[in-house]
């Protein structure tokens, strides 16, 4: 493993473990009151990892679109590789959001799936970015693959916020809990600390994954190049 990605990965992993510790042993349990009875909502513990995963996925999908635009502007191959690596890492995290989201839905509402705006949004994102990979594998020529990949990564990134807004158009009230509002976070003290530690841990870990993926892409290209050189002689 390259040094930089090793350092990032271990720092991220340490923070994530600290996050687990904070979430389970320091942060207070979430309590709801129903008819004078106090209920501990243990499933809220999922929040400390589910939300950082979701936000990390946004960061990388956005970066994917940004690097895609930079590739189209400059035609520098390295931007295209950065875009591809960012989208792939982002996609891994979208998948994680789906998995953890489904589990949380089951724990909280007793069903595996609910057509709720935010869950639906992530399902659409999963499908849209699956389309990105299908598109890339369906184009043969390297330069066209890079071009169409970059273009679709931009279109998809633009579509992410639109999908979110559209989900709220529905007159059905969203059941998904909203923690962050324009007024700021409705969390404080140990809860916020646990969340932020997990959040940064996740970002660091994702960055190390991104660097590894990028190394792999670059090495692949070097190999192709060397092979061609050897054949031409």
């Amino acid at each position: 493993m390259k040094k930089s990605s090793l350092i990032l990965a271990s720092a991220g992993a340490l923070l994530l473990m600290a996050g687990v510790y904070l979430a389970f042993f320091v942060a207070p349990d979430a309590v709801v009151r129903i008819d004078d009875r106090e209920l501990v909502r243990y499933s809220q513990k999922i929040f400390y990892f589910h939300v950082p995963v979701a936000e990390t996925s946004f960061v990388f999908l956005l970066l994917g679109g940004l690097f895609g635009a930079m590739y189209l502007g400059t035609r520098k191959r390295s931007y295209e590789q950065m875009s591809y690596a960012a989208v792939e890492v982002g996609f891994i995290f979208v998948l994680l959001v789906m998995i953890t989201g489904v589990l949380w839905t089951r724990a909280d509402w007793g069903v595996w799936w609910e057509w709720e705006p935010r869950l639906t949004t992530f399902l659409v994102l999963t499908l849209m970015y699956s389309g990105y990979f299908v598109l890339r594998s369906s184009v043969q020529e390297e330069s066209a693959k890079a071009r169409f990949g970059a273009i679709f990564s931009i279109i998809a990134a633009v579509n992410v916020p639109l999908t979110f807004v559209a989900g709220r158009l529905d007159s059905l009230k969203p059941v998904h809990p909203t923690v962050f509002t324009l007024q700021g976070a409705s969390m404080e003290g140990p809860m916020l600390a646990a969340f932020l530690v997990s959040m940064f841990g996740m970002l660091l870990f994702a960055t190390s994954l991104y660097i590894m993926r990028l190394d792999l892409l670059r090495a692949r290209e070097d190999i192709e190049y060397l092979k061609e050189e050897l054949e031409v002689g």
Partner: protein
Amino acid sequence: MEFQEAWPYVVGVYMSIWAVLLIYVVVLQKKLAAVKRELASLSKAVERKG
């Protein structure tokens, strides 16, 4: 939902995140190792050719 009913899902969430991330890291490392091997053999071939 209280502790008794919720804990399998909570554990499931944390485990699945770690599992997916670890699998991804392992796959990436394996591929990187394979690529490095290929690069080494190719650069030898380049040297031989001059």
